[in-house]
Structures are given as structure tokens and as C-alpha cells.
């Protein structure tokens, strides 16, 4: 247990103590609070065009009228939105000359995760020569992508360089007024990623590879927009298995995916933000809105492995607008100690012959609460819509909770909807069986959990699946009692 949480706890406690909630106080940080002037200032600082400023203001005006949702099955103290600074200068990270200076416990965690030395250096903030190294790697990637006409850059850059694309698609999948957090994000989003795959292009690499090397540190209000034009394909991976050391308590990201006719987007997420300490103190509130729209014969596949954050509120969804389109959701959500997760998906069937698949695996340990909440909605025009949902919960110990809230609305008689749910507990007989074969209890739990999660782990890009598997083990370390 001496690995990340203890170490993160220590680090975050000192950071909080030192800097408070508002990151580094330097001349570039805005005063706390939110009002129209702050929004204008953010937009100006980012050198955005007028339409973007107006878009943000419009979002802000909607947000002011909205109230924070309370229907979810999580409990937390609501953040004071006027006590947050909504723009801060790029974060200063400690720089080290070599890995020898980096906290050995952090390195140990990296090693457990199987992260390469170069990436370790990058993630730990080891300076210069390595960065030069990865910059060159990144440049090669950038050239390869550019050859195919693929645009992959920060959303800020896209607003400046490709305003027509951003303007056309931003807010079309997750409207500004969609929900409280989405409206907040629209008003104040700090940065994020933009990706455009032209017609008929198959993105030649997992964008994860590129992304991880280039990762600038996720912002508090991240905004991602991925547009796959007709007959294109892209696999995108966000997040990192390495523990994220972010002192921001509130995260409200928005991700929008647009899959045009015959396009396919595979979006994988690994989320491992600070979950709070063993007593449930601290930790990130993660309120995310993720949604994709599928046009004719398009396919969107969400895969997520969620192990971090104190509170998670997240429902990656698919609007199956086009005929014969396909939506998929594969999820593993792990909660330990005092973590709370309310996560799931919405599959909205609008087009004919649309298909959706939901595989959700919830693992609860400690005192945690893990809820699956999903909606399968079949609209009147959606002839022959089909859905298959499977929600499995695995419990460890008897202090945690697993909950399932499936909602089904079928407005067309031809719909076929299947829902399966199971709840199981890791049994002492299973552990003893493993012990008898020489496998200790920790390893036995890891084995059982990995077996339980296999269908979802198999959906992750290969190299990431291995890391995710180890991440599950680490997240549940110390939960054997």
C-alpha cells in the first residue's frame, strides 16, 4: 500500500498547504470567481475570435440559470464555483536532472505499470535532453499525420487554425445547455484536443502513442472534439495509467465525437486521478460529459477503465442517428476505500437497424459505492433497433455497495432489447483455491478481477491493455482483509 496513494497524499497535502486550491500564484493567475469579465478575459488570453467569445458567454449565461444535478447516487460537498480561479498559467512542474532525483516510490509505480524509461522521465518531469528526444519522435508522428491530411492539435490551436471546422462541430453533440457541468465547461474550458480525419482516411496509428508523448497535462476543464469524416477510421486514447498528480479538485470535461457516414471512432479512456486517501479525504471530483453521434453506418466504440477520482459522474453515450449505425460501450469501473462512481451510458436509437452493445463491469472494494446507470432509448422511427446490455458487479468485502439503474424506453415495437445483470462476491473458497496453488491473496484477487474484466480489457489497444491490467491490481492493493 506504500505505493502511490500514500505518496500522492503526502505530495498533495503539502501542495494544498503550500499553494491552496488555486495552483501557483503568479502574475498569470486570474482572480477567483466567475463572471462575464472573467470569461472575456479567458477568451482574450487565448486570443480567440469573437464568435468563440460569444459562444462562451452564451454558455455562461445558460449556466448561471442552471442548478447542479442531484439525481446521482453519490454524496459530496458541492464545490463553491466562485472560489475557483478559472484560468491559470501553464502549470509549473518540478524539473529534475535525472531519474535518480525522482521519488523512488513514484518510479516504483511506473515500473509496476510497465511504463518505458523515456515515458517515465517525461511523466516525472525529468528535464531537457529527453524532451528533445520525444519532441523529435513527436515531430515524426506529426509529419506522418499531416501527409494523410489528419489534423491533430490542441483545441486552442484548432480554434485559431481551423475555425471553420471547430465552428461547424463544437457544441453540436453536447449542446451548451446540455447539463450544468457541460455548460460550465463550455464557458471556461481551458484547453483540450481536436482531431479531424479526412474522408476515406484510416489513421495509421493509435493516437494514444502520439498523445501520451505529447501530453501537456490535462486541464481542469478539458474540451475534446473528434471528427471522423466519411469512411474514415481513428482510434483515440486519452488519459494515462500513471497516477495523475493534479491539485485541481473539480474536473468537468466535455468530449464530443462526430462519426460521419461509414466512419468509425474508437475512443478509449484510462482514468486514474487522485482518489482521495484511505479515510476518504480529498480526491478529484470528475464530472464528465462524453457523447458521440453516429451518422449512417457509422460506429462509435467507447472503452473506459476508471480507477481514480473520489467522485465520478460520467456517461459516455451514443446518438445513433444514422440508419445501420452502431454504438458500443465497454467499461470497467473500480472503486476502493471511499470512492464513489455513478457511471454508465446512454444509447439513443434514432435510425433504422441501429445496434448497441453495453458491457459494464463494476468492481467495488473498501467502503466504496459503485453505480451503473444506463439508458437505452428507442425512438419511434428506429425500426429493428437492437440492444444488448450486460452489467456485472463484483464485490470485495461487505462494506461496499454495487447498484444498477438500467432505464429502457422503447417507442418502437420492433425493438429487441436484452439486459443481463449479475452480482458476485470474491469468495474465500476462490482465494483458498489460489492459495493452495501457491498464489498469494493479493495476486489471487488480481487474477479474479482481471478474469472478471477480461471482456472489456480485450477492447483496449494492445499495449494499453497490459498497463490497464496492472492498474487494476494496484488500485485494489490492500483491499484484502
Amino acid at each position, binding site marked *: 500500500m506504500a505505493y502511490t496513494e500514500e505518496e500522492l497524499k503526502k505530495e498533495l497535502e503539502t501542495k494544498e498547504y503550500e499553494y491552496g486550491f488555486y495552483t501557483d500564484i503568479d502574475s498569470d493567475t486570474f482572480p477567483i470567481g466567475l463572471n462575464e469579465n472573467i470569461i472575456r478575459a479567458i477568451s482574450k488570453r487565448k486570443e480567440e475570435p469573437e464568435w468563440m467569445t460569444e459562444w462562451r458567454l452564451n454558455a455562461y449565461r445558460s449556466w448561471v440559470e442552471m442548478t447542479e444535478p442531484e439525481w446521482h447516487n453519490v454524496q459530496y460537498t458541492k464545490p463553491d464555483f466562485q472560489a475557483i480561479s478559472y484560468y491559470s498559467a501553464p502549470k509549473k512542474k518540478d524539473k529534475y536532472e535525472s531519474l535518480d532525483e525522482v521519488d523512488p516510490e513514484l518510479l516504483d509505480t511506473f515500473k509496476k505499470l510497465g511504463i518505458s524509461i523515456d515515458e517515465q522521465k517525461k511523466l516525472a518531469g525529468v528535464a531537457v535532453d529527453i524532451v528533445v528526444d520525444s519532441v523529435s519522435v513527436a515531430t515524426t508522428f506529426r509529419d506522418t499525420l499531416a501527409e494523410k491530411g489528419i489534423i491533430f492539435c490542441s483545441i486552442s490551436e484548432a480554434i485559431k487554425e481551423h475555425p471553420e471546422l471547430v465552428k461547424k462541430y463544437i457544441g453540436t453533440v453536447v449542446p451548451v445547455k446540455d447539463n450544468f457541468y457541460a455548460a460550465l465547461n463550455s464557458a471556461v474550458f481551458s484547453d483540450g484536443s481536436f482531431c479531424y480525419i479526412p474522408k476515406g482516411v484510416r489513421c495509421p496509428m493509435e493516437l494514444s502513442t502520439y498523445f501520451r508523448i505529447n501530453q501537456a497535462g490535462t486541464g481542469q476543464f478539458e474540451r475534446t472534439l473528434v471528427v471522423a469524416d466519411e469512411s474514415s477510421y481513428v482510434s483515440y486514447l486519452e488519459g494515462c495509467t500513471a497516477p495523475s498528480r493534479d491539485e485541481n479538485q473539480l474536473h468537468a470535461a466535455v468530449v464530443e465525437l462526430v462519426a460521419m457516414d461509414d466512419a468509425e471512432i474508437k475512443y478509449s479512456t484510462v482514468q486514474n486521478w487522485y482518489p482521495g486517501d484511505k479515510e476518504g479525504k480529498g480526491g478529484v471530483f470528475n464530472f464528465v460529459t462524453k457523447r458521440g453521434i453516429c451518422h449512417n453506418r457509422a460506429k462509435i466504440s467507447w472503452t473506459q477503465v476508471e480507477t481514480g477520482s473520489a467522485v465520478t459522474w460520467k456517461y459516455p453515450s451514443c446518438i445513433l442517428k444514422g440508419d445501420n449505425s452502431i454504438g458500443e460501450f465497454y467499461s470497467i469501473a473500480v472503486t476502493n476505500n471511499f470512492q464513489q462512481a455513478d457511471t454508465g451510458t446512454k444509447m439513443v436509437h434514432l435510425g433504422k437497424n441501429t445496434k448497441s452493445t453495453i458491457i459494464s463491469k463494476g468492481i467495488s472494494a473498501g467502503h466504496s459505492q459503485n453505480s451503473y446507470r444506463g439508458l437505452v432509448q428507442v425512438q419511434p422511427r428506429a425500426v429493428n433497433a437492437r440492444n444488448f446490455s450486460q452489467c456485472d458487479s463484483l464485490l470485495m468485502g461487505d462494506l461496499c455497495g454495487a447498484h444498477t439503474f438500467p432505464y429502457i424506453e422503447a417507442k418502437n415495437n420492433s425493438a429487441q432489447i436484452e439486459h443481463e445483470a449479475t452480482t458476485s462476491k470474491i469468495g474465500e473458497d*476462490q482465494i483458498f483455491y*489460489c*492459495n*493452495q*496453488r*501457491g498464489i*498469494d491473496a493479493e495476486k489471487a484477487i488480481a*487474477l479474479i478481477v482481471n*478474469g*472478471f474484466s477480461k471482456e472489456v480489457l480485450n477492447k483496449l489497444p494492445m499495449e494499453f491493455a497490459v498497463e490497464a491490467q496492472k492498474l487494476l491490481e494496484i488500485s485494489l492493493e490492500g483491499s484484502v482483509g
Partner: protein
Amino acid sequence: MLLIDDLHASVEGKEILKGINLQVKAGEVHAIMGPNGSGKSTLSSVIAGNEDYEVEKGTISLSGENLEDIDAEERAHKGIFLSFQYPVEIPGVTVTNFIKTAINASRKAQGLEDMPAKDMLKNIREKAALLEIDSKFLSRSLNEGFSGGEKKRNEIFQMAMLEPKLAILDETDSGLDIDALKIVANGVNKLKSKKNAVVVITHYQRLLDYIIPDFVHVLHDGKIVKSGTKELAHELEAKGYDWIKQLVD
């Protein structure tokens, strides 16, 4: 190799084993027979180190080492293997993956590196062939949807892979048809050597036609009440357990 001295054990406060004495030497096969509820499975669980059972008195030692403070997984590392009467299911974990994990856990305990993938594969193939297990079986989830015979065959496959010093076969014959019984028994016989020992726990004499014991012990109400050679098993089969009861009374 195995020395049990005046072993008393209980579960949930109820005494099951009431003074067991048993000595098993390398190269020997012992059979422990007895009616239901006589303590056969408890004895195997206690030897394997199941913490649901409380050892009240007496000792178990393996190659001269007292096992009192040794966990189940360490006992496994030291060479104790238990073929379960009711093997558990672990969904999503393949037979191959499970045995790999088990072997590497034992190797790690001995300070060895993981077994190279090539050697592992070769080993798996050889042992699978020995027990007439086909390769499709190896990629199925552990015990999930297995027939009784498949479960037992898988137990013996794991035994073959782990090469234990002391193997305890708890009712391995239950749920096996005659063909499966022969395959399993044949597998066990091939694995027998002068360096290891086998304890067969069984209700019926049937299995002992195929795995010939050097000694037979009859367990009754938590005690070994009679010991003998393989003829004792035949006598028991002929006269029934009531004969033992009368003998004790």
C-alpha cells in the same frame, strides 16, 4: 515426508479431528477411507492450511519442518498439493493462465525468474498429452461449465504441472466415469516417483484398483481406527463401514 502427530482440529467450535497420527514416507501411496462425516476432507484442508479450520492440538510436519505457522500458499511452495473435491470456478481466467500464474508464484518464492514462455508451453503440452487434454480445453475459463470429470482431470493436470512432493487427492474419483477414472489414475501413476508421495482420500475402493496403495487407513469419527495394506480396502468394500463401527464399539 509427512508426519502427523496427535492432530486435533475443529471448525466453528466443533471438533472434527480427534487425534490423528499418520506417517507418509517418500515413494509411498496411502489411502484414507471412511464414511461421510468421518473427517476425511477436514484432514486434507488442515494439511493444506485452510484457515477456516482451527488446529487445537498436535502437529503436522513436512520433511521435518513444523507447518504450524506456515500459510497455505507457502505450504504449496514447499510442495503440498491438494486436488479439491469441489474445485472452484474462476470466470475469465483460462486454465493456461491460471497454471502459469501458479507456477511462477512458486518459482518466485524459490527466488527463481518466471519460467520462459517456451518452456512453459512445452511443459503444458506434455502434461496435457499425459492426461489426454486437448488444447481447446486449456483456453477455457477455469472450471467454468466443466463437467465433473473435466474438473478432476484439470486438478490432476495442475498437479502434473506443479510436481508436488506430497499430493493429496480428495475424492478425486467422485463424479468420474470409468474412462475418466482410468485416465486420471494413469496420470497419477506416471507422476509417482521415489521422491514424492500420494495420499488418496476416497469413499470407495474403486479408485484403488487403479492407484494401488501401499497402506490403507480407515478414518472414523476423527480418528484412524484401523490401518493395513490394500487388502483392507477390499475387506472394507465387502463388509461395509458398519463393520468398522462395530469394531470401534
